[in-house]
């Protein structure tokens, strides 16, 4: 069965392969090329593979010897292949490490997050400050009882104090007579609701949408307010000043000056308004020339920012608290205004147009 020619062919074949493979493999410049060349020797149709298929035809006495030689060669090829592959990888890495950089100006590839509305951002900032001082957050309905929005807050009946808050009433068109339900004009309604629900001590801030019948360059018929109040025994005006000064300095700048002016809101007494150093001309830095030019504070260096006061005893009486035992303070601010101040938003209408070009700035 043995074919003497087979031995010859086999030996010649091995010798041929042995003489060529190393150079061929080392000449490959890329991994696919290397694998292709490698396949020519050891692939299913490779030269060495073909030789190995001749094994059964070899005479018994030489089969073992030649078989060992073929296997040794196969291992050598493998070793050379591994070495060549490693070298290709290394030079590729080398080329990457020393070659031209990637075009880093191409767009990033990820699902980008969206943005919070500037009013929400400001609301969160304000809330965070008060929460860190121990205040809770509460809210209430936007459609409210007249009682909660005015009467219980101490607005006298038929009093011009309600004129300051031109009110939307709920009802069939034109039915102004039934004025018992309205769109809340102020978040102070939540004061009433929370006090009717809970007993002191109370420390609450309540942000939310409010509505007034004003629609012009500087007014939006819906806007956002934040109301805060603290009720306990022995709460003082001095503490009101302390809390609001701290709040404004944390929100805007620790250097701003804060001043309290007397003012009037039916549900507080004494009542006040709070001015702070103009944040546009950074009035606290004392650059008079810059402040004089400032259109925002009209050269005064001050801007109005909050309303506040000690909760009027009539409010306590209306919610069933002992007005002699408890005192408290309350304050309110326009979140729209704070957002406009903080982000330099020139026009309140921008806040409600939902222009993506605007929203994407925050």
């Amino acid at each position, binding site marked *: 069965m043995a074919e003497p020619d087979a031995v010859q062919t086999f030996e010649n074949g091995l010798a041929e392969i042995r003489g060529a493979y190393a150079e061929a493999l080392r000449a490959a410049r890329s991994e696919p090329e290397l694998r292709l060349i490698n396949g020519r020797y050891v692939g299913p149709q490779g030269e060495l593979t073909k030789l190995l298929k001749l094994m059964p035809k070899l005479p018994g006495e030489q089969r073992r010897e030649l078989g060992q030689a073929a296997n040794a060669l196969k291992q050598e090829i493998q070793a050379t292949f591994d070495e060549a592959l490693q070298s290709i990888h290394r030079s590729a890495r080398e080329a990457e490490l020393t070659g031209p950089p990637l075009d880093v100006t*191409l*767009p990033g590839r990820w*699902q*980008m*997050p*969206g*943005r*919070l*509305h500037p*009013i*929400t951002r400001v609301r*969160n900032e304000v809330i965070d400050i008060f*929460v860190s001082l*121990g205040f809770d*957050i509460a*809210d209430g309905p936007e*459609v409210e009882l007249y009682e909660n929005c005015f009467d219980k807050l101490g607005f006298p*009946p*038929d*009093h*011009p104090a309600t004129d300051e808050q031109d009110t*939307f009433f*709920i*009802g069939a*068109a*034109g*039915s*102004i007579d039934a*004025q018992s*339900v309205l769109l809340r004009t102020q978040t102070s309604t939540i004061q009433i609701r929370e006090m009717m629900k*809970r007993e002191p*001590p109370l*420390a609450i801030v309540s942000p939310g949408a409010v*509505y007034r*019948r004003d629609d012009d360059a500087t007014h939006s*018929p*819906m806007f956002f307010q934040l109301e805060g109040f*603290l009720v306990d025994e022995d709460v*003082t*005006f*001095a*503490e009101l*000043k*302390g*809390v609001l000064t701290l709040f404004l300095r944390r929100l805007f700048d620790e250097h701003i000056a804060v001043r*309290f*002016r*007397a003012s*009037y809101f039916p549900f507080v*007494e004494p009542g006040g*308004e709070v001015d702070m150093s103009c944040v546009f001309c950074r009035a606290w830095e004392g650059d008079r020339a810059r402040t004089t030019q400032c259109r925002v504070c009209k050269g005064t260096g001050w801007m109005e920012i909050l309303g506040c006061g000690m909760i009027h*005893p009539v409010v306590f009486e209306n919610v069933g608290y002992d007005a002699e035992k408890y005192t408290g303070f309350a304050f309110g601010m326009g979140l729209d205004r704070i957002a406009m101040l903080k982000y330099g938003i020139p026009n309140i209408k921008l*806040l*409600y*147009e*939902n*222009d*993506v*070009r605007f*929203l994407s700035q925050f």
Partner: protein
Amino acid sequence: MLVSFRWLQELCPVDAGVDEVAHRISLAGLEVEAMEEKGKNLTGVVIAEVRAKSPLPKKDKLTLVTVFDGENELEVVCGAANVPEPGGRVLFARSGAVLPNGMEIAPRKVAGAESNGMICSEAELEIGIDADGIFVVDPDTEALPGTSVADALDLYDVILDIGLTPNRPDCLGHVGIAREIGVLLGVGFTSRKAAGPRRSFAAAGSFQAGEPTTKLAPLWDNDSEAVDTPKLPAIFVEIADGDRCPRYGAALVSGVKIAPSPFWLRYRLHNLGLRALSNVVDATNLILLEWGHPIHAFDLERLAGPKVLVRRATQGEKMATLDEVERTFTEDDLLICDADGPVAVAGVMGGRDTEIRDETSDVLIECAYFDPRSIRRTSRRLGLHTDSSHRFERGVDPGAVPRVLASAASLIAELGGGAAATTAIDRISIPFEPNSIRFRPARAAQLLGTPVPQEESLRILESLGCQVVEQGDDAFIADAPSWRPDLGREVDLIEEVARVRGYEEIPTAVPRVHPSEAGTSGLLKFVDRLREAAVASGLYEAVNYGFLSIDDLRKARVSIDAVPLANPLSEERSVMRTSLLPGLTAAATRAQRRGATEVRLFELARTFHPTDDTLPREDTVLAITLAGQRAGWIGGEQSFDLYDGKGVIQAVLERVFGQKPKLTVGELPSFLHPKRGARVTLASRPVGFVGEMHPDVGDDLGLIGRVIYAELDVEGLYALSEELGPTQARDLPKYPAVARDIAMLVRDQFSAGEIADALREVSKGLAESVRLFDLYRGDQIPDGHRSLAFRVTYRDPDGTLTDKRVDKVHASLAKLASDRFEATIR
């Protein structure tokens, strides 16, 4: 409220400059919002004497005037018809002067003549409103040619614009503000007497016998010449509704001549925003601005005497007011009537038929105190807000009636050249009772957080006009003055003390806050988490108005059972939204119109729904819309479709809940595409929907392209999150998983999801996940079919899986697919 600083200086001995005064009163509650200096912007405008005048040839309306401006004789062309004769004086703007409106005066040729300057009207100099002719200087005014107009006419003043709060009616006149300044700057204030008329008469006989009267003469600062009592019908006052008219006074001035007011008066009214008309009417306005107390002047001859009756209107009663409008009244309106009927709407506006005319000779001056609430209701009902109603509805000083009458009678007599009656009717139906208020310095200290010495409190309150009626060791009782209706209880006095001392005197302190057990409600915190999740998932937050039009709702096919506004600003914003859809999709469309290619918006806000209760139900909703193209990486944009909507819902809910929602086919809102939408469930609970907008609705709303819209019920999600509690950690698998694929050809009617569920189910707990990784339609796939390929990950939690076991289970999956879903396994 506009206030003249000059006038304040006349009323109160204040030395401080206007800036200091403005600052002090602003801090104390009278906020000065603006200040305008008068008489400053008229440099180059001087008194000039007319030396000659002649009509310009062929230009009959123009006059060539030679004036002497103190330095030169100049020729100037003037278009006014009232150029005075030589010797008369005019206001002359020299070349180079700049008028308040910005016009620069320069020599120029007018109709062939050289004109060197300009002869001005009061309107051109903004010192009045008369634009009909030039201003001719009164012969009594001493001013040489060349004198600056500001000096000659004494134009210097500073006008303060004070934003008065509605609790301070006492400051609606200069006297009240002067009193405030006196207190705040520590210079004191004493109410001055009126100058007094040159001529007066005893009223006896002018009033019906027994009529309650008050003497005016002692309130005058002069001895007037007594003249004969004129023959007038004996009038009397009857108050039929004492609650609404606690006090009614009436004074008489006889023999006036109606004429224009002198310049100083017209100028003052002009600066304070009122229009000068004639001496008597101007006088009533000046008194209003001085005392803050509205008065009304009737033409006595036109009053059908003798009775002046203050009564409520009968329903439907009519009268023409002096603005020539016929008004109809209700029984809630208070009227001033004569024998023939109404002559004035009490405290709001006088009647047309009894107003002062050019022929008026005898004047009846009304000064009353009306119930504020009544005046306010009438004023609002009539839509008639006047300087008078503005003050009465805030509460004028009932105690000031005699002084105001004395001032008014004196001024009208002086300006009109008439004589004033020395007494006036003063009918009181309800005497003024001061509020007696107990003040405890200890309470003030407790409230303010700083000690308040009793002596200082006393001094401040007395300087404000309070009368201390009782004094103890730790408290005193003070009567509030009649001009301060806002002082009703102890805190009001504490505020007075605090603000007069200055809020800056109160120290700052940090309170001890008792944190509550419950803290902020879980719902509010949950809402914030959702909002953050929406942003993290790529959405931009929109904020829309809560109201819109019923048409917006109808077009969007959402509920039109909406909460209506009784007094909307416009039809476009006349009902509360029942859905966030119209607002949010409109915002998306607007963004697309402005060029945005990819719009990803959300809104987390309330919708409003009528109920049987007084208040509507307010639902908190998270709405999402996607419109336009989802951006690929450098090209590769694709229109948003349902799967983007599904993806974003998944992203939001997974972030908050740590688990995936499920989409199921089911009944969809009618604004969604019936075949391209799904209901969203989470932990088997329905929580919302997502889908493509119905194309018809899209057309009605003007949407661009296929718009995706989704809604999640925030309160429902919150309840679910409470129920599910925090995510519980699971053990990590101990044994390796084995993955096998299964591909099948299946009819479209079977959803990938239900096949995957069924495969998982039949695996007897071994299939940890079944994931669709390939979906193919096209060549070689019959119509109505698709090729689905799932990767099944097998894992036995209790041991290593053998190939044999996996093969067996995998085969059962294939069998199930072909049996239940008629699938051809590929």
